[in-house]
């Protein structure tokens, strides 16, 4: 019996309401940035997307570790969906980031900026996750190798983040710091609401995808149980756990 659909409606409504509130605060409440002007509004979507994507990669690593510990394939599926969702959020981060870079710096991409380049490295690293899975035919081995990858790559994310923060030469704006950041109250409130909204969207989509996968698996299992093994077509080779 699937449990992933439980609370999905409430979560979806909460995500939609928070994102709507964040958009309203962004355009009607947060003041224009003295330095960047209207362009700074992109940060209210770009930074939450980046934080959520990076946390999603780490989350995938934690779930991968749970698979390695228990051997239960549900953890592998959860890890797969967490990384899959984080990749989508990461693509959003890259696209919104390049739009901001073009508007602010006049270039779509600046290779000398460590934050940009390191995020791209993380994305490229996780972009190999799906081909890695696809290259392994045996489902058990696929889950085990993918989980090891998720743990190692997930551990790389905070290390990479710390290394970039420690670097002195940067041009990327620092929105949040340990000493309180560079945001005044109204901007900070808007940013936090946007962050909560994007995080809720991530959790909602993760649960949505898990519910869909779980339902498909149950339909297959029911068909097999009721109509026999021959009634189910063999699964095609896939990167997704089945």
């Amino acid at each position, binding site marked *: 019996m699937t449990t992933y659909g439980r609370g999905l409606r409430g979560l979806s409504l909460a995500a939609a309401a928070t994102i709507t509130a964040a*958009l309203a605060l962004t*355009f*009607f*409440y947060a*003041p*224009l940035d003295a330095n960047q*002007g*209207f*362009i700074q*509004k*992109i940060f209210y*979507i*770009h930074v939450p*997307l980046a934080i959520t994507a990076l946390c999603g990669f780490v989350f995938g690593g934690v779930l991968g570790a749970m698979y390695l510990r228990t051997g239960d394939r549900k953890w592998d599926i959860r890890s797969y969906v967490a990384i899959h969702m984080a990749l*989508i959020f990461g*693509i*959003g981060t890259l*696209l*919104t980031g390049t*739009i*901001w870079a*073009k*508007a602010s710096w006049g270039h779509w991409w600046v290779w000398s900026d460590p934050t940009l380049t390191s995020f791209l490295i993380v994305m490229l690293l996780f972009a190999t996750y799906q081909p890695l899975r696809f290259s392994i035919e045996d489902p058990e081995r696929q889950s085990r190798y993918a989980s090891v990858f998720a743990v190692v790559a997930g551990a790389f994310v905070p290390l990479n983040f710390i290394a970039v923060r420690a670097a002195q030469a940067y041009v990327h704006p620092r929105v949040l710091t340990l000493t309180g950041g560079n945001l005044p109250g109204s901007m900070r409130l808007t940013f936090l609401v946007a962050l909560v909204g994007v995080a809720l*969207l991530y959790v909602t*989509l993760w649960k*949505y*995808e898990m519910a*869909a996968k779980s*339902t*498909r698996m149950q*339909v297959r299992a*029911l*068909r097999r149980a*009721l*109509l026999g093994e021959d*009634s189910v077509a063999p699964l095609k080779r896939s990167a997704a756990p089945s």
Partner: protein
Amino acid sequence: MSLLAVAPALPLHTAGKYVAGAYIVFLALVLIYVGIMATRLSRTERELIELRRDVEAQRSARDPDREREPVA
């Protein structure tokens, strides 16, 4: 309304197109994802209907005199 009145005018002629572009990208990603999920959901629904039909057929083949009952 008062909130709208004090809101700054959106400078759509300059930076506005970039800001609009960024938010459209975000919206498009979510919509594409939801669209893909809707396609998958309809596939699962089709499989479920097929399964229901197969089970009904199997039941009636096994016990032709039995009164037909919906599977679900």
